């Protein structure tokens, strides 16, 4: 089924997904990027558009990875990878960093997820109710704190199971927090009536997208 409906469509690769998301980040926003695919979003900001990246471990104005010979071991991002500081950067401690997050000072947080529900629930920290080694990090603070929470993830699992659902089956990171989802197939806004389609990849019909989505996809109301 999946292969048939996808035959004429061109799903975005990870680079394409990150580039698509960056199109919607305006100049002047303060943005936190989660570990993993969200981190790659920073690589696609066009030159000249000033977006300030926040790292939970106490950096605003975080720049790209340094060349191997210019690594400063005292400068890492949330994923513990070496980064740089841009002109205008600021350093601060963890309580201030999470005051920025929890206090609603960040314009946007981009996270990965296992599942997003049509009411904005996000599940992204554990796939099991009895996870043997649990870890949560800053995800719960980020999900409730930023003005906007966008999720970037594949539309389905590798096995073809939908990640956009009516109700999350995994333990929640935060209820009712997601504003928008960017997948390899579409961009969907979370609204009062559920997922509303903002964008879809070339060659894919809405009907085909619906078969890969376990919640109703609404078309935007035209005024």
């Amino acid at each position, binding site marked *: 089924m999946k292969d048939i409906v996808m035959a004429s469509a061109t799903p975005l690769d990870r680079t394409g997904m990150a580039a698509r998301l960056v199109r919607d980040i305006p100049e002047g926003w303060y943005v936190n990027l989660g570990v993993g695919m969200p981190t790659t979003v920073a690589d696609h900001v066009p030159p000249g558009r000033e977006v300030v990246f926040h*790292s*939970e*471990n*106490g*950096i605003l104005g975080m720049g790209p990875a340094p060349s191997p010979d210019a690594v*400063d*071991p*005292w*400068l*890492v991002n949330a994923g*513990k990878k070496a980064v740089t500081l841009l002109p205008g950067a600021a*350093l*601060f*401690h*963890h*309580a201030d*960093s*999470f005051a920025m*997050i*929890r206090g609603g000072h960040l314009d946007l947080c981009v996270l990965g997820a296992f599942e997003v529900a049509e009411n904005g629930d996000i599940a992204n920290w554990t796939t099991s109710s009895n996870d*043997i*080694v*649990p*870890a*949560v*990090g*800053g*995800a*719960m*603070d980020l999900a*409730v*704190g930023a003005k906007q929470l966008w999720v970037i993830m594949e539309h389905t699992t590798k096995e073809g199971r939908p990640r956009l659902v009516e109700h999350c089956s995994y*333990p*929640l*990171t*935060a*209820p*009712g927090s997601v504003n928008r989802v960017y997948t390899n197939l579409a961009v969907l806004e979370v609204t009062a009536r559920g997922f509303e389609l903002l964008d879809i990849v070339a060659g894919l019909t809405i009907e085909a997208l619906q078969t890969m989505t376990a919640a109703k996809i609404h078309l935007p109301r035209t005024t």
Partner: protein
Amino acid sequence: MMDKRVASIAEALSGVRDGAVVLVGGFGAVGQPNMLMDGLAEQGARELTIVANNAGWGRETGIPRLMGLGRVRKIVCSFPKGSVIFDELFRAGKLEVELVPQGTLAERIRAAGAGIPAFYTPTGVGTRMGEGKEVREFAGRSFLLEQALQADVALIEAWRADRWGNLTYRGSGRNFNPIMAMAARLTIVQAHDVVELGELDPEIVVTPGIFVDRVVRVARE
């Protein structure tokens, strides 16, 4: 003359008792007081509760070394994944774990240092983290009651220090260190550089010496 400098790691750690709650600075490897952690392993205190963002990596140093020696009864952290020793002990039921969202961990430590016994936070409402905790509504939104995290000892890594215990940090090495320095009854600092009083520009001091009890100089690793 007030002088918080001590001559050795052993002297810095003297008096850390069995059963102590120990705050350990650092985010990943950055800002971790590795020499003090190795010193604590030598010092021998047992039944420790370790509070740190991560549970470390590898086996040879830091929190994993202490865990491997059987000195740690409980760990309070946000992201223990990545530590083989943690994994082994946790699976064997030999280690108690309190998992705390990172921002809640930071604020519980800050609150302890600031004389605030508890606070309400939106983080964790409607999740497994909220189970068993008081929920209260303010302006139509729900919040969890979280308690301050009092500690006996804080182990801190700073970049520069003076004999009054004023501290500066470097890069992202600041992380939990300044708030942990505030929250413990005994705050012990390893600094890469110890300078004369007056050499630290008051405008750039991050942790004022009032929060610090002991400073030991360590060679840069």
